């Protein structure tokens, strides 16, 4: 056990901070879930790429700088600490990319990863369908073999595709063997959204922004080079991705540590007014802010423990479900605390309100927290399934 950073890591943090300080865009940026905002974000993420900060832990050959996982966590801390927003490229670089690294051919890696890192291709996730939400194995979109053309014909519908209205590519599961049982006979496809036969309908989310899309497939051709992993083995490939989504990659501790820092600032700015209204109220929020600090710190330490295991060669297992429950509920609590500190103004539109609305999706997506608790009980504690 050694909980100190090496000189190299400290130097890396210093470099990252310096670069971000000098190059950060004007803040706050418009929401990434609107057409205009998306473009602003994409441009900024291209700046990141060009300076080598887009995907620090990737090999240099694909656009990264071969940083360690610890350095990636450090970069994330610095990134969020600078007040920067979540990445609109995240579903590509954090969800698809690890799967490509694990299951992709060399040709696929060379073709997909650099364009992804440089924001040329923007990827969205095609998991959910109208009848397959938490129950991912319930999908019915299908792919039919076209042997002559050396590929597959996709038909069906995907829904709740985050930023699908603005993205250029989609990764998703389609049924290739309709006879197989629920968890088999699916294949993992990589789809260019400009292919003929695709219709994208924007769907607004809770806060009114265009957060989602419905994507309709009507005889869409995809050639064999765009299958990730083996035909009919898409479930196993997808499970690797959902592990990432639930676990640390989408929600690195830095984001919550930065949110708590902002919460502390908010409290300090409002402290006088709170105390003037009532000492009890002030004391309640002081404590609540400290509770949020402890939660973010606990999450950071849990992540450090997980990363230590990964670095030692272990694969992260169902622990990712623990993380997902924890960060999603913490995110809501941080924002509820902030809105409470804002008092009677708490229901007005603000950055905190926007963040609160966003946080409400946390216990739902990437598998509801109810499903995650089942996973914890069944896989970590060994309780029987029904």
């Amino acid at each position, binding site marked *: 056990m050694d909980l100190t950073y090496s000189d190299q890591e400290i130097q890396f943090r210093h470099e990252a901070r310096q670069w971000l300080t000098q190059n950060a865009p004007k803040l706050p940026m418009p929401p990434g879930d609107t057409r205009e905002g998306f473009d602003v974000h994409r441009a900024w993420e291209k700046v990141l790429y060009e300076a080598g900060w887009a995907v620090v832990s990737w090999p240099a050959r694909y656009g990264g700088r071969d940083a360690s996982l610890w350095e990636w966590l450090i970069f994330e801390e610095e990134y969020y600490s600078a007040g920067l927003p979540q990445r609109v490229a995240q579903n590509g670089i954090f969800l698809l990319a690890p799967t490509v690294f694990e299951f992709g051919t060399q040709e696929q890696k060379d073709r997909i990863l650099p364009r992804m890192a440089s924001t040329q291709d923007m990827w969205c996730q095609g998991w959910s369908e109208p009848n*397959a*939400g938490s*129950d991912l194995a319930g999908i019915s979109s299908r792919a039919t073999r076209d042997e002559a053309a050396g590929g597959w014909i996709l038909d069906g519908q995907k829904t709740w595709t985050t930023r699908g209205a603005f993205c250029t590519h989609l990764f998703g599961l389609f049924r290739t063997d309709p006879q197989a049982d629920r968890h088999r006979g699916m294949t993992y496809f990589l789809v260019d959204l400009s292919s003929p036969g695709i219709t994208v309908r924007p769907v*607004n*989310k*809770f806060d009114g922004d265009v957060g989602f899309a419905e994507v309709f497939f009507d005889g869409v051709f995809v050639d064999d080079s765009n299958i990730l992993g083996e035909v009919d083995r898409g479930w196993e490939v997808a499970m690797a991705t959902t592990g990432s989504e639930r676990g640390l990659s989408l929600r690195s501790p830095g984001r919550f540590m930065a949110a708590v820092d902002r919460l502390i600032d908010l409290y300090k700015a409002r402290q006088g007014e709170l105390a003037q209204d009532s000492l009890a109220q002030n004391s309640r929020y002081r404590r609540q802010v400290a509770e949020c600090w402890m939660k973010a710190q606990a999450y950071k330490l849990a992540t450090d423990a997980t990363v230590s295991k990964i670095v030692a060669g272990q694969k992260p297992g169902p622990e990712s479900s623990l993380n997902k429950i924890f960060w999603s509920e913490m995110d809501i609590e941080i924002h509820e605390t902030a809105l409470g500190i804002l008092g009677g103004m708490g*229901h007005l539109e603000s950055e905190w309100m926007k963040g609160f609305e966003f946080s409400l999706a946390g216990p739902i997506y990437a598998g509801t927290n109810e499903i995650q608790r089942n996973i914890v009980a069944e896989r970590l504690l060994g309780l029987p399934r029904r």
Partner: protein
Amino acid sequence: MNFSFTRDQLDLRDTLGEVLSKEFTPERLREIFEGLHPIDQKAWGVLGEVGMFSLLAPQDLGGLGMGLVEVCLAAEELGRCAFVGPVVEHTCAVVGHLSLLWSLGLAGGDLLEGPGQEDFNNLVSGTKVATVQLRPTDPVAWGEASDLVLLCYEGQGPRLARGLMWDDPNRPRPSLGQATPPVAQVPARSVDHSYQLSWVDQGQFNRGGIINLDLTFPIDQFDKKTKTLIELVRQITIERCTLVVAGQLIGLADKMISMAVDYAKDRTQFQVTIGSNQAVKHHLANSYLALDHARHPVYYAAFNLDRFVEDLVSHSMSDDDIAGRWDECLRDVSFAKVYASRAARLAGKTSLQCHGAIGYSWEHDLHMYMKRSWALANLWGTVDFHLDRVTGLVLR
């Protein structure tokens, strides 16, 4: 002792519920939410027809002469459809407030027969839309959509205002009185887009030409006892509004739970109805429990506030009685507001979680009910304010 509603009370509620389900549909709410209208004038008129605004006016003034219990029953229905407009303000803070002043002999004969009679009748019938402002720095609910505003400040008698209103603090305004907060501190609008907040400009105070009601309160000429009484009436108005907001929150909670129950009975995942999962059952059972235990405190407080007002009007309380019973009223109103706000918050969260992604979309109605409940929980005293008040009064 009898905690059941009378047949008349239930009929009133059911009638209103039926009218609203026809006149104020989720589609109508969505139009307002998306900015097409400020309020629904037609539905407002129908509310007037069924007597909503006259509940707290005595029969002598053309009202129904009922109490807050009935208003809270109505408020549940208004909450259930997230009705848009200053109903609480109009019913309690304008009609109810003026009526109570009149009943105590403090308002001019104007209400009954003077030149203001027609104006007052227009309020009772809902032909005019009224709202209220309690402090010069407060935003006014639906000020732009209202025909008049009752200014009801501490230490002053009520006044009627019709000034310029803004729903956008960035719009230039003629004269910013000192009392108006700087623009930077005033975000433009509630996350509940159907809840319009406006700013009244003190410099443009102008009641001539709009109504004839004479509310010139020679407050400085009143004796101390009368001044105290006028302030008490103002306080009663505030507590009445608070409690009716609690009633709306109960209705909202009920609505959001019902939506989730219906969805959970219908939606299938993992080859079973999601409502057959114990986790979903327990989420909804907890929400229902919170709602059930929040509803009774609302009516308990309403009943006791009604009794307090009755005894005040009939002069059957000593000053000590008044002080003691008023503290109990404050405690009970705060208790009701805290529980109703929490029940609505839990109902919203639970409902969203049971709906999953569909509930998180703008196209689904749920977000409109959730956002209304967030706004109402913050208005007429936050949960924190009421929690402090109930704590202070329980631990006197």
